[in-house]
């Protein structure tokens, strides 16, 4: 019972600790995971804005430099007067000055009048020419065209004299450094992709190393498929969080692929897992130790109570509950002790009552059996006690009983037992004492008890009668011993003697005794001894009478 209380407390503690630790750790991990993914997405979003900003800034920068050419008086004159030589030279010179990869002049209908790249006048360049025409609308935003394996950012501005007489345009190839610049700030890998007319998409610039760039190019079609805008892409054994953004672009699709190494999410999580193990592990061990100590701390008083209860209800003669501390437990223990004491001791004399006497006699018999020692049971009552009670009052009777108990105790060894069965009936258990010894003790007791007792109404005199039965000479069991002793006492009473009468063992035929014992058991259960109130002498005397009847008289 107490063991299970201790285990239960421990189980609850350990369960709480495990639950709390597991819950906290899991919650922390989930939150950290969400944060890591959120940060990565935020970085991708920032990069997306940077890509758009970069394209816009480049557009603005190129437009400004192109306006310098468009506003040049000589160039305007050349365009107005269709001076082809001047136009060609101006396109080449200014293009080289601002780092353009191609420079063109178009009329108001979008036809190319002059170009530094003759391939622009071939049919293959038609999409680019269309994009150039689209780029005339500045509000359309940056225009990027894929052309002969390259991506070009196109800028077109009008030539006014002062009416619009033509459009001058330039193309700037988007090289890796554009992506590199974005990566330098954002830390995100950036790749620029244009969709060729009906053909495979083309990877034109990227921050990725060549091998991963090739791997990305192989996956382009899948990546650019509608509805596949984000996810994880594996490139040469390394995973990337990938985001594809489409840039508004005059009709021809242009994409930027933004990629973050998946490690940026998983590495901190791995570190967190590691840290959690290092922190939670020792904490778990410390908590478990604390739980064990706590469980013991809580269970200890309960165990003490349980031990006390065991001791109280057991037959340990003379042992008491050791109550050292004045706390709730000691209060309970004290109450237990008091309760138990009341059920086992006679409150008037403080002597063990019938119940306790029965237990002790049983254990004394067991010990005598084990150690092959004799044991004497002496039944004592007081002659004339009833008349004292009747004539002098119960208080005086009680006084006589208390005095008698004191005198009996005083004359005996500390190991001897004096119990009060009821009314004026006392029983002594004398361990290791034979019939002769018992008779001597009784003789020694007689004059002591017979001494007058001081009382407010004058000295009172009582005399004692006794019957002795000895283990193993007269009987071997508790009830027979008691009955024989009682019978012996009655005999002395019948004979009007104040001396001790012990029944000789020879005249106690075994069959008769065994019959009488069985008849006792048949009449009343063992509860006769333990359950009878200590004052109920009617019941206690009844079975003894039967023995008297069955026992051969005069033996």
């Amino acid at each position: 019972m107490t063991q299970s209380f201790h285990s239960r407390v421990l189980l609850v503690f350990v369960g709480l600790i495990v639950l709390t630790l597991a819950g906290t750790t899991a919650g922390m991990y989930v939150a950290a995971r969400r944060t890591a993914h959120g940060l990565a997405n935020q970085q991708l979003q920032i990069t997306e804005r940077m890509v758009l900003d970069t394209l816009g800034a480049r557009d603005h920068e190129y437009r400004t430099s192109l306006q310098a050419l468009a506003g040049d008086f000589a160039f305007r004159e050349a365009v107005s007067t269709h001076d082809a030589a001047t136009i060609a030279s101006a396109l080449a010179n200014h293009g080289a000055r601002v780092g353009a990869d191609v420079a063109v002049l178009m009329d108001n209908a979008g036809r190319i009048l002059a170009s530094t790249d003759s391939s622009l006048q071939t049919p293959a360049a038609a999409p680019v020419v269309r994009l150039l025409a689209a780029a005339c609308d500045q509000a359309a935003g940056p225009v990027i065209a894929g052309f002969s394996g390259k991506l070009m950012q196109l800028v077109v501005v009008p030539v006014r004299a002062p009416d619009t007489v033509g459009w001058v345009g330039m193309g700037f190839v988007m090289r890796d450094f554009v992506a590199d610049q974005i990566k330098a700030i954002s830390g995100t890998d950036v790749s620029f992709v244009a969709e060729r007319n009906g053909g495979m998409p083309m990877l034109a610039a990227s921050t990725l190393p060549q091998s991963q760039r090739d791997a990305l190019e192989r996956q382009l079609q899948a990546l650019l498929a509608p509805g596949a805008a984000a996810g994880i892409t594996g490139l040469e054994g390394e995973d990337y969080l990938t985001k594809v953004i489409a840039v508004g672009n005059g009709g021809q699709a242009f994409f930027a692929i933004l990629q973050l190494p998946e490690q940026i999410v998983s590495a901190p999580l791995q570190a967190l897992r590691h840290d959690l193990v290092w922190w939670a592990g020792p904490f778990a061990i410390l908590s478990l130790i604390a739980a064990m100590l706590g469980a013991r701390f809580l269970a200890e008083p309960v165990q003490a109570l349980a031990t006390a209860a065991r001791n109280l209800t057991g037959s340990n003669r003379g042992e008491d509950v050791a109550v050292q501390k004045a706390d709730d437990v000691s209060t309970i223990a004290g109450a237990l002790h008091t309760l138990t004491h009341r059920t086992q001791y006679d409150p008037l004399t403080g002597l063990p009552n019938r119940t306790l006497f029965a237990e002790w006699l049983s254990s004394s018999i067991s010990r005598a059996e084990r150690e092959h020692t004799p044991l004497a049971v002496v039944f004592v009552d007081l002659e004339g006690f009833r008349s004292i009670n009747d004539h002098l009052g119960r208080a005086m009777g009680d006084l006589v009983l208390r005095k008698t108990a004191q005198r009996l105790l005083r004359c005996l060894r500390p190991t001897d037992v004096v119990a009060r069965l009821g009314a004026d009936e006392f029983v002594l258990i004398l361990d290791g004492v034979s019939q002769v010894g018992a008779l001597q003790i009784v003789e020694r007791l007689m004059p002591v008890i017979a001494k007058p007792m001081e009382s407010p109404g004058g000295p009172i005199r009582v005399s004692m009668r006794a019957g002795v039965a000895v283990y193993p000479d007269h009987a071997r069991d508790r009830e027979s011993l008691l009955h024989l002793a009682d019978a012996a006492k009655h005999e002395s009473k019948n004979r009007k003697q104040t001396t001790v009468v012990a029944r000789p063992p020879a005249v106690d035929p075994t069959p008769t005794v065994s019959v009488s014992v069985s008849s006792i058991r048949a009449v009343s259960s063992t509860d006769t001894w333990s359950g009878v109130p200590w004052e109920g002498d009617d019941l206690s005397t009844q079975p003894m009478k039967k023995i008297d009847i069955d026992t051969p008289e005069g033996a």
Partner: protein
Amino acid sequence: MMRRNRQIVLNNAQGAGAFRVSIGVESVREIELHVSVRWWGAAVACAAFACGAGAAQVNVMIEDAGAAPVHDAVVALLPAAGVPPSSTPKPPVALDQVKKQFVPHVLAIEVGTTLYFPNSDNIRHQVYSFSEAKRFELKLYSGKSAAPVLFDQPGVVVLGCNIHDWMSAYVYVVPTPYFAMTDKDGHAVIKAPPGKYTVKIWHPRYAHGRDAVSLQFEVAHDTESLQQTLTLAAEDDSPGVPPEHQ
């Protein structure tokens, strides 16, 4: 007075937008001095025309597709018989620059007219034209220091300022004394002697740099009148505005 109305709708292949031009002609018994011109150069031209006798009054009304009147359209009547030679020198005409704008924005003059370009702003302007009808450049100047320019070829001359890119003006040089510009109500009145004419209409929003639309009609001595309507495609090329006004 008998009146005969004829409607001709010319659809321009270019499409977007349209002008609707109504031309009504009625013969007049008396010559009226029409004073609805707004600058003295044109007034002088009309006064010169008033010296003739037995002229007809040609009323021109131009509105856009939304029936709003179109102003600053140039209407010129080219006599089929050719312009009678005139020894009278053409009076010079001014084209001013005020608040970084050419004033007027559109100007019609007869061939042989001299334009001079006063600068009413307190900053320097440049004037240039790369147009075939008259190519010239007046380098940066202020006040009235610029030399006058003779316009001796018919056609459209687009003027710009190399400093202020938004500044533009259109000078329509016509080879006839019979011309006018529509007023803010889209209305123009030309007095011309009886005879066969080709009418040419021109507006910066319609056909700068291209030939003006042509229409044949006759101005007779009797009380006959005719009404014609043309629809012309417009181009969106409104005159420039200084950046601070945008």
